[in-house]
């Protein structure tokens, strides 16, 4: 007969629970006193890796790796969105891809982020911009480089810009960013 373990193995780490004050006695008065106890807070970690699919939008990212910027166009109406969209929102029809790499582009709106989400804190300050393209009905959110984040000015709106592409693609929308034309 195998002897089964009757005691859990003690390991290093965890919390030193004997350091937390607790009444010696558990009489009614002492238990009532526990209502005044400070809360116990512990750390919990949560890490997970997702396998995210770009699905029907994948060609847009493939284009970035080849230094091209695509947009989606309704074949009938010609309504064009800078962000890829598999189906047009007005007709419901499947869109076709068009190349807007060389379309004239301007800054529509922008900001400089001096603070941000945890993932982007090391990159602060950075400039976010919405770009408008000739012949395209909607905008594109991107990073704007080549402007001074310490001296933002409303004059940046309307500035002519052009796309640049990362040499080493990360397969993210930041594979493309914009810089002033000149």
């Amino acid at each position, binding site marked *: 007969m195998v002897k089964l373990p009757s005691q859990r193995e003690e390991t290093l780490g965890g919390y030193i629970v004997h350091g937390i004050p607790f009444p010696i006695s558990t009489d009614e008065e002492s238990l009532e006193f526990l209502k005044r106890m*400070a*809360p116990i*807070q512990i750390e*919990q970690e*949560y890490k997970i890796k997702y396998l*995210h699919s*770009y699905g029907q*939008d994948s060609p847009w990212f493939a284009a970035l790796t080849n230094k091209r910027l695509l947009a989606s166009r309704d074949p009938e109406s010609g309504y064009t*969105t*800078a*962000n890829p*969209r598999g189906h047009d929102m007005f007709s419901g029809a499947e869109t076709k891809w068009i190349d807007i790499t060389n379309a004239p582009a301007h800054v*529509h*709106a*922008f*900001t*400089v*982020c*001096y*603070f*941000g*989400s*945890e*993932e*982007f*804190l090391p*990159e602060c300050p*950075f400039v*976010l*911009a*919405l770009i408008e393209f000739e012949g395209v*009905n*909607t*905008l*594109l*959110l*991107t*990073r704007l480089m080549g402007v001074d984040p310490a001296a*933002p000015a*409303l004059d940046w*709106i*309307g500035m002519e810009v052009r796309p640049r592409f990362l040499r080493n693609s990360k397969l*993210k*929308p*930041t594979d493309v960013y914009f810089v002033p034309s000149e």
Partner: protein
Amino acid sequence: MRPVYAISGGVSKFAKARPDKTFQAIIKEAYDYAIDDIGLDFPTFTRIVNGSVASYFSDHFTRQLMAGIMAQDYLGLCPKPGHRVEGGGATGGLCFQEAWKSVASGHMDVCVAYGFETMSHVETWKGNEFIALASDISFDYPVGGFYSGYYAMMVTRHMKEFGTTVEQMAHVSVKNHINAYHNPYSQKRNRYTIADVRNAPMVAWPLTRLDICVMSDGAAATILVSEEGLKKLEAAGAKIPRPLVKVTGIGRGTDMMRMADRPHVDYDNFMENYATEQEKSSDDTKVYYKKLWDHGTRYPGVHSFRAGRSAGNMAWKHAGINDPLHELDFIELHDAYTSSEIQTYEDLGLCRYGEGGPFAESGKTFLPNIDYGLKLKDKPVCAVNPSGGLIACGHPVGATGLMQGVFAIWQIQGTIKKHFNDDQLQVKNAKRGAIHSHAGTGTYVSVSVLEREG
């Protein structure tokens, strides 16, 4: 649909962190207050209430799925019906409307809407990340996901197109912070000046830390009833103040997740599908808008909230309101940013599109009996955020829209002094008010109208 009355509410103290209690116990603070305020004890109310709607935004903050049922359990509401509502920043407002639906449809006679958020469980920058996950994770979040950044982009465009200034935005911050000075439930109770707002640390140009609401822990609850529900509660000993507060208008709207994708509609489309009734009936306004469009302005662009306009128009129509500025005594408006309060003035029809900046500093949305230390051109007309709004009260997301509902009930009941121990924020003879709840970059928006019966 049956008439629906909002008879009571409760709010926990909003705070940066509430480690002293779990989220269920924080909700119970608000819930117990709402029950106690109508003079009932817990078991009696539990016996009569038909069910609930739970409101909380993010499972990430609690690291707990199905938190709603844990609250339902703690409040002793099992096995009665209940469900969770989620719609970003508008979660609380949507929850209020779901409770309204439950009662108006005849499904329930007494429905409690409760909500919470405990945002202190993570660092602020991680909280920003969770919130930014409410933007498209393929195209928007990876570029630098940060909601303050998104709103800052909207307002730079608003400034460029309409000449809106940072000082006009700061008027909103001063107003809401000073109002909250008299609100004991508020997280921030400070008197600021325009200079304080502009000299605060820059977060996302041109928005400073005092242009932006804070993350909070907190909860709120409201009780909605039908006429039958009212009779049942009163038969059990409830003391419900007269005149009653009736929910008379419900409106909702939506817009695209990626604000870059929003259409830029032409003048005719705007006038036909988006203009308020008041705008449609004013030749002067039509001429003003035609000029805007001739200069290249389009709607909604990234500087306006089409969902807010849709929600407002729907709620005003339902409540029979033609001129919200003059027919409402107050609005609790979702001011996550000073800039978004200005944008929303325009979309709720308080002023014309593009005129939100001058309107913000006019004085029309201030309270008459409070010294703001500002020179205001006009007399108060319709108080916006008499409670202090999100900027000062805090924004525990799932609780926020319900907090607005509670403050609206108290304003219309005329019981602000009883609940705040201070009547500075009581809007005199408040008969009708609106609560406005807003998500994302304007993706879900709800507007509800509450008014004194009779």
